[in-house]
């Protein structure tokens, strides 16, 4: 296998955790490369989750999860402006509908206080309904956590990656790790389908496949199994019948429950259920799963307008065999795990990144801060958010702002072209969708899909038939059988 390059740190996995770690690394004078097996970043669990920045009252006291959750939540408050992150600090409600559930809320309150969560209080039914008027009238009270919020996860992962790249880190997509070379008990190189990368450190942020990666280095200390969560997303126009923020039911012993939440873009969704699986590739939405989600959600929102549902999707959480995060040095020197990142993994990500670097320092790695770290990203033009006069101006500067490609969400060709040419730019239809929202509206890409495909082909200089939807073999269009013949 040919030598692709030599670096100091290889981060395996381009989800929220891997990209957060890459960004943290890029603050220091150390070379780092992130490898991602899919054609795009954030194509795994990061693109299919509840998008919630949890307050931190849920995790068991003293667990790694609890600490990382609260610290991560705090860090997002700081990163928000720096990276122009799409976050709404809506606060969250855990709703009780009987006396028993009310008792559980008190437990959660206590746990939250122990975990260091600020501002928690138990609200009366009237107070709850004042915040969320469409909730069931059987509410007996709710735990209010003002520090919780909703975010736009893939944009966050991309922001982390773009920040890292503008500070010298490297991202390689379509790069699947096939082996890890260990010499004298120490990591020496990572073998990928694109070649060998010599490295001193390997950060295992490989999500569902973190155990397989660990195994490649001879580390069999943990296993990961997938827990499937299905979601149903509603049209924005249903907003008035839905919720303003994040609403949880009272949790049971086994799960946080099926919640109702409105994204930063105004679409409400319900979910997730929780089904433990063995197959890491099973992302099928099921009839049974959807039924369970709808029944459960109706307990919170009796008048759920099912006729306005626009899409369903499903994500797989990476659950470790001990149920907690696995953030530690491996026995193999230089290998650091950031695994088992089920909920609150999204919230914890920036804190996990800090912890990984601390682990490197523990291993005697000298980390020197880079001078001139560029922490701020260049501003992105989001056409539909601009006032009309500004819209007129941007079209004068770039005609392509004048062509609306995604009619449902009012996304222009200029924004799509920018998303393709940005650092860590989109190369697939779903990649464009994640960055611009083109295709996330009620027609679900029916109108814009073919147009986005043709724009990708043009901008990437590839035939339309080579444009992918998401994964490496997800071609969408084929050539017609053209037989060489005469001209008419």
């Amino acid at each position, binding site marked *: 296998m040919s030598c692709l390059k030599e670096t100091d740190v290889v981060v395996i996995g381009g989800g929220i955790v891997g990209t957060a770690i890459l960004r943290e690394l890029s603050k220091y004078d150390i070379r780092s490369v992130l490898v991602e097996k899919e054609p795009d970043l954030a194509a795994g669990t990061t693109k299919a989750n509840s998008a919630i920045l949890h307050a931190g009252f849920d995790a068991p006291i003293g667990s790694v999860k609890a600490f990382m959750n609260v610290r991560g939540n705090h860090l997002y408050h700081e990163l928000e402006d720096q990276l122009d992150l799409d976050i709404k600090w809506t606060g969250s409600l855990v709703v009780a509908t009987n006396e028993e559930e009310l008792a559980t809320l008190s437990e959660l309150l206590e746990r939250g206080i122990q975990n260091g969560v600020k501002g928690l209080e138990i609200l009366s039914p009237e107070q709850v309904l004042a915040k969320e008027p469409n909730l069931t009238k059987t509410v007996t009270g709710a735990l209010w956590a003002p520090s919780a919020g909703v975010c736009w996860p893939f944009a966050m992962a991309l922001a982390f990656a773009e920040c890292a790249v503008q500070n010298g880190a490297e991202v390689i997509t379509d790069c699947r790790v096939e082996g890890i070379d260990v010499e004298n008990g120490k990591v020496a190189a990572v073998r990928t389908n694109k070649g060998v990368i010599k490295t001193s450190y390997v950060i295992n942020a490989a999500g569902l496949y973190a155990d397989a990666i660990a195994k490649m280095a001879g580390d069999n200390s943990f296993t990961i199994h997938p827990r499937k969560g299905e979601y*149903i*997303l509603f049209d924005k*126009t249903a907003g008035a019948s839905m919720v303003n923020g994040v609403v949880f039911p009272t949790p049971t012993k086994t799960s946080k429950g099926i919640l109702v939440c409105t994204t930063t873009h105004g679409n409400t969704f319900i979910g997730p259920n929780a089904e433990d699986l063995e197959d890491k*590739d099973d*992302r*099928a*939405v*099921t*009839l049974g*799963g*959807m039924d369970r989600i709808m029944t459960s959600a109706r307990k919170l929102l009796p008048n759920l307008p099912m006729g306005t*549902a*626009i*899409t*369903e*999707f499903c994500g797989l959480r990476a659950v470790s065999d001990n149920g907690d995060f696995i953030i530690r040095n491996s026995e193999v020197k230089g290998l650091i795990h950031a695994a088992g990142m089920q909920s609150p993994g999204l919230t914890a990500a920036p804190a996990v990144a800090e912890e990984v670097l601390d682990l490197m320092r523990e291993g005697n790695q000298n980390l020197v801060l880079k001078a001139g770290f560029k922490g701020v990203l260049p501003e992105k033009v989001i056409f539909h958010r601009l006032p*009309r006069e500004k*819209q*007129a101006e941007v*079209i*004068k500067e770039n*005609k*392509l*702002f*004048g*062509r*609306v490609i995604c*009619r*449902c969400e*009012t996304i*222009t*060709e200029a924004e799509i072209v920018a998303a393709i040419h940005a650092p860590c730019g989109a190369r697939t239809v779903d990649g464009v969708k994640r960055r611009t929202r083109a295709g996330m509206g*009620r*027609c*679900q890409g*029916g*109108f814009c*899909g*073919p147009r986005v495909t*043709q724009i990708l082909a043009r901008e990437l200089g590839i035939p*339309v*038939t080579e444009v*992918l*939807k*998401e*994964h*490496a*073999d*997800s*071609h*969408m*269009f*084929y*050539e*017609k*059988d053209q037989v060489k013949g005469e001209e008419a």
Partner: protein
Amino acid sequence: MNQIYDVIIIGGGPAGLSAAYSAWENGAKKILIIERDRELGGILQQCIHNGFGLHHFKEELTGPGYAYRCIELIKDKPEIEALIDTMVLEILEDKTVIAVSPEKGLLQVQGKTIILTMGCRERTRGAIRIPGERPAGVFTAGAAQRMVNMEGFLPGKKIVILGSGDIGLIMARRMSLEGCKVEAVLEICPFSNGLTRNIVQCLEDYNIPLYLSHTIVKIHGNERVTGVTIAKVDEKMQPIAGTEFDIDCDTLLLSVGLIPENELSRGLNLEMHPLTSGPIVDQRRQTSMPGIFAAGNVVHVHDLVDFVSEEAEIAGKFAALTALGKLDEELTVVNVEAGNGIRTCVPQKLSLPQEGEAARLFMRVANPERKVKLEVKSGDTLIMSKILPVAKPSEMIALDLSAEKTKLIKGSLIVALNREA
């Protein structure tokens, strides 16, 4: 661009084009059509099959042929302007239309009247919640049709089609003509909504099996579609356990319904009808906002483009007359209700001057019927009746009420079926 148009028409498909011509015929002097695609003609340009125009142009035409004739009628008239590659973002209550295009930037134009002719869009997989993975290879039939007929690409080679309405049937034939294998067409109802002519010429001709009372219960494939699981359904359209079977395929085309595209109408807070999903209109096709008219698929999904043109001509005429200030009468507004056996009826209102006014009603029956009488009643008075030897939900029925007849109307009008005919 600070000119006031007599009529601004949103959408340059058959409805918009016919409305423009009619407005011109009725004296409007400044007419603007705004079209988001690269050319006029709307969805017709991709409907390359024939069967259009028998009523309206008295010849059987292809979709592009029908569009061509509509465009020829308005092409060289200095009173009619058309903007293409231009997307309307918003319509304000004062009838200002805000639009963008690469060439002209942000435009604001004002109309004395506006005609909404935005057409419709397709129902998606997400809206009907088909379980399974989300691989590449699932398309709505119309999106696939555009790629095949206009851009020159195939959506796949081994195809299953969900929905036996005309769009699904037409695509079954189209894909077969392009050398693909269409494995099956599935229909959740016990009957097909498509024309019998299409069942014969699109399915039977190509030996494509039609499974009535069947639906898809799972889509397979991680990256690209690899197959679908199909099941029979009961009277409540729920899958029957144990009837499942698989069909291998690489493409699923969905022809599961059309929805009028009314974002701009909702932005204006027009009164909408829950069953048509379009704005409520009177016989002049005026909406709940004076001066704003609507016609074509945006009001209710049509099956014959000829009716779309007729409806649009009514809207064009009355928009023009309104803009020219020629309508200044006292009107009595009467509700039109869909009664027994009728699912929808457009218009939903009649705005009648004292001397009455001719009204063209378009309706759909709720279920397939044979030998029934369609009755239009106002209270106990029978205004009009028509015998229908055959009526299907998929075939819109047109009924003309003469001005004379409308003078007999007092109170609500009910359109209903009498099965004791």
